[in-house]
């Protein structure tokens, strides 16, 4: 026997169709329709933000790992996903450096300082968005009118400040506008059509589980149905189920943010709890706080609760039976 044989512990077969890199690539593929929609509605500035965010996310990870003498894991593409998601959470008129700062925060502060991929306790892109919102509230205001098919925003639009669909007193958008994405908002969260396409792709590829998106959206729908009693009507403005489901960051949150493996529970029941929890917090924040939109905070809150949920939803091993009383054993 001339060749060298490998000896390793079993099992010796592995599913080569799945790898971390392939999963991240699938997420990027699922985000492409949304990226296209963002460019369609918000033009070159959206494209610029995406490119800056992705490049700075990759650079941040590379430089940090080089400086700390760790193996460089840029090739797993997780930083591409983080950068892209962060860009989707910026308004079209945000300056380019805001995207870069956001990516640095997400990759270094939230992800690498806690141990890199698999160790972050919050969704990096969402946590960075929250920091940007609190630090540069003015710049993060999503008040640019979409300009479908135009590369640059019409001059007038820049000067005019408009309200997003969830701002109180600004409920004049049609369902089709909300669904297609022809509304003011963060560049990646307006087009529900594109987001749902990507979400369905992830479900088909079995990258994400149905439990979180379904329970998240379901909870929001039920909460609003109880509160408003209306599925949809034009007169009710924003006070109906469909309008709420299609507004703000709910869809991108339910399919792309809350389903982040690292920061969501690992068991099936845990995932349902996560979805229901996110839905309830979103409802509470949207209805009873001064913020018009609460998706990111709802998810971040459940991210932090994830270890606790995991702890309480651990399954008993197959065939587990409560041990019988020790007295009985002694007799036997």
């Amino acid at each position, binding site marked *: *026997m001339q*060749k060298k*044989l*490998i*000896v*390793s*512990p*079993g*099992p*010796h*077969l*592995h*599913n*080569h*169709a*799945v*790898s*971390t890199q*392939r*999963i991240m690539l699938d997420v990027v593929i699922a985000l492409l329709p949304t990226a296209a929609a963002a460019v369609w509605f918000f033009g070159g500035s959206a494209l610029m933000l995406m490119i800056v965010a992705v490049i700075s996310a990759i650079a941040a990870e590379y430089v940090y790992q080089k400086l700390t003498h760790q193996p460089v*894991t840029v090739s*797993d593409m*997780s930083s591409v996903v983080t950068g892209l998601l962060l860009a989707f959470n910026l308004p079209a008129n945000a300056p380019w450096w805001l995207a870069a700062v956001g990516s640095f925060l997400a990759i270094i502060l939230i992800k690498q300082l806690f141990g*890199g*991929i*698999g*160790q972050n306790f919050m969704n990096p892109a969402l946590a960075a968005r929250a920091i940007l919102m609190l630090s540069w509230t003015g710049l993060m205001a999503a008040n640019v009118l979409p300009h479908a098919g135009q590369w640059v925003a019409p001059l007038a639009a820049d000067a005019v400040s408009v309200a997003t669909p969830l701002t109180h007193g600004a409920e004049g958008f049609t369902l089709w506008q909300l669904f297609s994405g022809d509304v003011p908002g963060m560049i990646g969260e307006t087009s529900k059509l594109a987001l749902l396409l990507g979400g369905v792709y992830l479900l088909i590829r079995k990258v994400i*589980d149905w439990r979180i998106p379904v329970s998240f959206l379901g909870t929001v729908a039920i909460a609003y149905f109880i509160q408003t009693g209306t599925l949809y009507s034009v007169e009710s403005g924003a006070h109906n189920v469909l309008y709420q489901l299609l507004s703000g960051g709910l869809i991108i949150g339910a399919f792309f943010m809350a389903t982040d*493996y*690292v920061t969501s529970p*690992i*068991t099936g029941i845990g995932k349902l709890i996560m979805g229901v929890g996110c839905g309830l917090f979103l409802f509470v924040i949207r209805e009873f706080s001064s913020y018009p939109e609460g998706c990111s905070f709802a998810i971040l809150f459940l991210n932090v609760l994830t270890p606790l949920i995991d702890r309480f939803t*651990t*399954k*008993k*091993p*197959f*065939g*587990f*039976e409560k041990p019988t009383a020790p007295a009985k054993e002694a007799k036997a």
Partner: protein
Amino acid sequence: MSLYTRFPGGIHPHEGVNGKSATSVLPITETLPPSRVSIPMQQHIGAPAKPLVQKGDHVKMGMKIGEPAGFVSSAIHSSVSGTVVDVAPCVLASGLQADCVIIDNDFKDEWVELHPFENPEALDAAALSALARDMGLVGLGGATFPYSVKLMPPKVKIDTLIVNGAECEPYLSADHQLMLIKAKEIIEGTRRMQKAMGIEKVFIGIEKNKPDAIALMTKLCEDDPTFTVVALPVVYPQGGEKQLVYAITKRRVRTGGLPLEKGVLVVNVGSCYALYRAIYEGMPLIDRVVTVGGSVTKPANYLVRIGTPVQFLLDASQGLLPQARMMIYGGPMMGMAINRTDIPVTKGCSGITVLEKALMNSPETACIRCGRCVDVCPMYLCPSDIDKAMRKGWYDEAEKLGAMNCLECGACSWSCPAKRALTQSCRTCKKVIGDKQRAQRQQKAEAK
């Protein structure tokens, strides 16, 4: 009975060249006997057998060369006639050394006198158990549990006998081919167990990827209403004892318990055939069917004498293909990678699998908590958490996470996108926790 014959979890592993589809159509062929066999004294769970022969002794085929030592133990018989060269430690598949009786074959195949049972119908459980002990019958599915213990007169009522013909392990077709040529004998052996133990129902579980075996068995069982052939879905590890019991009876075997507690006895098809031969031909267990599959020139199912070196089988299959990178004693999921070819085939060896370069694993990366291992674990464990606990040395935590229930099927490692050796972590935990529990029991016993 429920038609939904599935257990929770499980996977559908892919195979490389000469996988199950290739080996499952190869009828069993007999290899020429090797010129020298080394027969280990421990081919079963429990205490090693005590050698009965010495250097220079002449032995006949079927002669008892190892006496069971202890309650959980089994006899060992010579698979050739010839001269004992030595009784010495040899390296086995685990990489550890154990005592073997090494016999030079004189190629005369002289048999000892065989004593078939005169009145098989009248066999009771005690007689079957004694026979199993004497004839060296153990579970041939891989666990090699002595049948003398399994067939003890039952303390609880056993109402169901399950014959395990699932053969869920990729590449292997030994049981499949045996069912095709020895179906009648398997059923007859099973019937003797059924009668001796007073069992009402018998289920023969076969995965759907063996339609010819299902058809044949169903036909032969037609006139016995107590026999049912169950076509099982093709999911790994369908052949796991607890999984099989749940799939067929929907009874959950207690963690750390045996199917017996739930009134179920599980036996392997190969063992049923061995039992048949022991009863009707007086023949001890000296050979078994072994699949040689994967990256070998000529994959085959061989009837192999116990103690035959692996090299002999590889030669019979005309050697490895150029892309071969790993040689496995057993199937690719639960078998052991070996690095030498003088290792003897034992009672628990159902195959020699050779894997090619393309199937080798890539380096591991960080866990991303995707939960795939949790979804596929047939025991409802969280392998990723057990893995993390093991790496930190938190064995108490691993014990709380149920690591001791791991059946080492390998489904978690197979499905891990980060390519982490989750099954190996569980094995490590089981070893450390098991050692600790044994030490505690010993301490308690000494204190008394």
